């Protein structure tokens, strides 16, 4: 069944702002059309629930009175009365002041900048010309898709609605395209979003999702927009607005397929990326890595499991130490890398505390004995704990391993061992560092949180259902790779046990 009604029509019915004839028609239609019926029920439900006022049961005034100065207006009566009169007349004062400033400006500007009339005229006319005709030069006879897309996008972005203080970016989905002789008419579902950049942060301004129609003509190899129908210029769902589109396009629009959450999200990502590119120089780096999660709505809660670190550290006899390669004094304790006479495959880490030798286990492949620089021994602060961290390469293809040890009661204890180079960083700014490990050529990423004395781990590949996850060290972004989704990459930001989708990249070449 053909259905020309949309959500706003149903809202009008609920709010009783429809004329009697249309109301009866729509009521009749709802009985037959299951889509409208469902939408109507959903809206009616929200209407009933959202209108409810919830009573505040506590005594608010008694709580307030202890926090405010009761005598504020009594004792300073005159001061506030003058203030009251001032603020009441503020709008009038504003106009007077603005007028005064303009007059002063003109008087001073005339004497300071003696422009000749012709030079000003020349400047104005060239500016107006460039504003009015957005054209693209092209010699070929056939339509050039790239130029048409570029012109369409630029034209819509600058003509859909005026930006407040930023710049409008747009992305669209094509509903229908008609090419006839030298004319090309496109019916598009456009998402236009204003972005501005303040203090290095990208902020969202006005936004709209609207169907538009744009007709481009090719005259002497030059593309020119000859017609643009913008529904924002009319009242919502007025007859004029409905007449902007031919019936088949209107039908497509009303299916809602072109303004579904998925499409809007996809277009939002595109506009956001355009805005990021545009404001690249002004954006602080931290913002690029932490875009507002409000823009996307997808968040994935992560599952964490306790890590089993019961393996104890062995005390060894000095005679087992065949050769010592590196030695480092960490907080009064001697940490060293040695060849254990019982192991021909790996170099071991060792600690000497009060003439007692401890074997910390394998830390590097024995082949690297001539390259002690590949092993790093450091003391680090992690969640208010002082840990010893040893990193070394233990396998082929530079397969690394990071081991963390904690000193307790004068003895070393295994704290955590991760594959690859462990990164300790408070990426979600919750005051506690996380440890991120990333290894393998199809990267496998784990995230560790320290909580109530336990280390917990989340397998990020598994949680994001990805074929590979890479942690971008400089931007704190987790990039998830999917083999089967047209080579799509999704960008996530971690925050308190949740991953927030902050971007999507279509192909690996992006």
């Amino acid at each position, binding site marked *: 069944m053909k259905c020309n009604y949309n959500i706003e029509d149903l809202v009008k019915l609920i709010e009783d702002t429809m004329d009697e004839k249309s109301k009866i028609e729509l009521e009749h239609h709802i009985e037959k059309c299951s889509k409208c019926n469902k939408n109507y029920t*959903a809206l009616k439900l929200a209407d009933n629930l959202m209108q409810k006022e919830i009573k505040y049961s506590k005594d*608010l005034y008694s709580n307030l009175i202890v926090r405010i100065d009761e005598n504020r207006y009594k004792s300073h*009566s005159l001061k506030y009365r003058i203030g*009251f009169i001032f603020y009441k007349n503020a709008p009038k004062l504003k106009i007077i002041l603005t007028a005064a400033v303009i007059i002063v400006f003109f008087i001073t500007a005339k004497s300071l900048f003696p422009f000749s009339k012709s030079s000003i005229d020349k400047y104005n006319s060239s500016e107006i010309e460039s504003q009015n005709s957005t054209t693209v030069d092209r010699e070929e006879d056939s339509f050039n898709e790239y130029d048409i897309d570029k012109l369409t996008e630029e034209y819509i972005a600058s003509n859909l609605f005026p930006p407040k203080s930023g710049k409008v970016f747009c992305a669209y989905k094509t509903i229908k395209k008609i090419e006839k002789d030298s004319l090309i008419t496109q019916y598009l579902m456009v998402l236009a979003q204003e972005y501005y950049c303040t203090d290095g942060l990208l902020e969202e301004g006005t936004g709209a999702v609207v169907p538009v129609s744009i007709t481009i003509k090719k005259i002497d190899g030059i593309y020119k927009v000859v017609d643009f129908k913008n529904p*924002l210029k009319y009242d*919502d769902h007025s007859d004029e607005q409905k007449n902007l589109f031919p019936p088949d396009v209107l039908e497509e629009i009303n299916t*809602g397929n072109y303004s579904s*959450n998925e499409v809007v999200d996809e277009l939002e990502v595109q506009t956001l990326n355009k805005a990021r590119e545009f404001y690249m120089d002004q954006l602080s780096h931290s913002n690029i890595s932490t875009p507002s999660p409000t823009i996307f709505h997808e968040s994935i809660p992560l599952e964490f499991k306790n890590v089993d670190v019961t393996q104890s550290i062995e005390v060894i006899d000095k005679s087992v130490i065949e050769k010592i390669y590196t030695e480092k004094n960490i907080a009064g304790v001697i940490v060293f890398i040695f060849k254990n006479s019982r192991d021909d495959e790996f170099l071991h880490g060792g600690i000497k505390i009060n003439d007692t030798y401890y074997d910390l286990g394998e830390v590097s492949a024995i082949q690297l004995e001539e390259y002690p620089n590949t092993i790093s021994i450091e003391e680090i602060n992690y969640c208010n704990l002082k840990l010893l961290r040893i990193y070394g390469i233990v396998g082929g293809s530079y397969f690394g391993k990071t081991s963390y040890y904690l000193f307790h009661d004068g003895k070393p204890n295994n704290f955590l061992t991760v594959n690859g180079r462990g990164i300790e960083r408070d990426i979600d700014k919750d005051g506690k560092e996380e440890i991120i490990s990333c290894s393998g050529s199809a990267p496998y990423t784990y995230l560790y949180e320290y909580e109530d004395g336990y280390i917990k781990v989340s397998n990020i590949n598994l949680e994001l259902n990805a074929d590979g996850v890479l942690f971008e060290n400089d931007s704190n972004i987790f990039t998830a790779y999917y083999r089967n989704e047209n080579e799509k990459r999704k960008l996530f930001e971690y925050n308190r046990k949740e991953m927030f989708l902050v971007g999507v990249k279509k192909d690996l070449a992006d």
Partner: protein
Amino acid sequence: MNQEELLIAKSLEGDMKSFETLVNLYKDKIYSFLLKMTLSKEDSDDLLQETFICVYKNLYKYNDKWKFSTWIYKIATNLLKNYWKKNKRLRTRELSQFPLDDLYNDSNNPEIKYENKENCLQILKILNELNYDYRIAFVLKYVKDLSIADIANITGTSPENAKMRLYRARKKYVTSLKSIRRS
């Protein structure tokens, strides 16, 4: 001079009884608004107090060119915005903090009661997922006596934009509700 203007004038003369009446006139309205925005009883409680403290301190700045209700909602919205920025990471809430029972129609029929509660939860779940701009447009729309122009004024945007946000919010709401029900 209507009742509200009289109460404001008297409060500005130091009559606390008038201010108390003003508080009682608006507390439920503002509380409902804050609760639907934050979905947390505790945070709404704090914000409600802050709103009225701010109202009291700035009462002499109130200009009767605007409706008093618009002004008071604007103050609450400004505080809410700060709250939103500070709690960037806590925007989506555990719905367990929401006083559900206050919202849905209590009925003696357990079946209707259950259905009402389920419906209510579904709406809150969707609300929880709407971003700030959409959520505020959606919530304010259902506040009695606020026009689109008032909503635009409160949220600091143009009426066209407010209208567009509301349209998008409703659209998201309807699609989300449908997908919840399908699943």
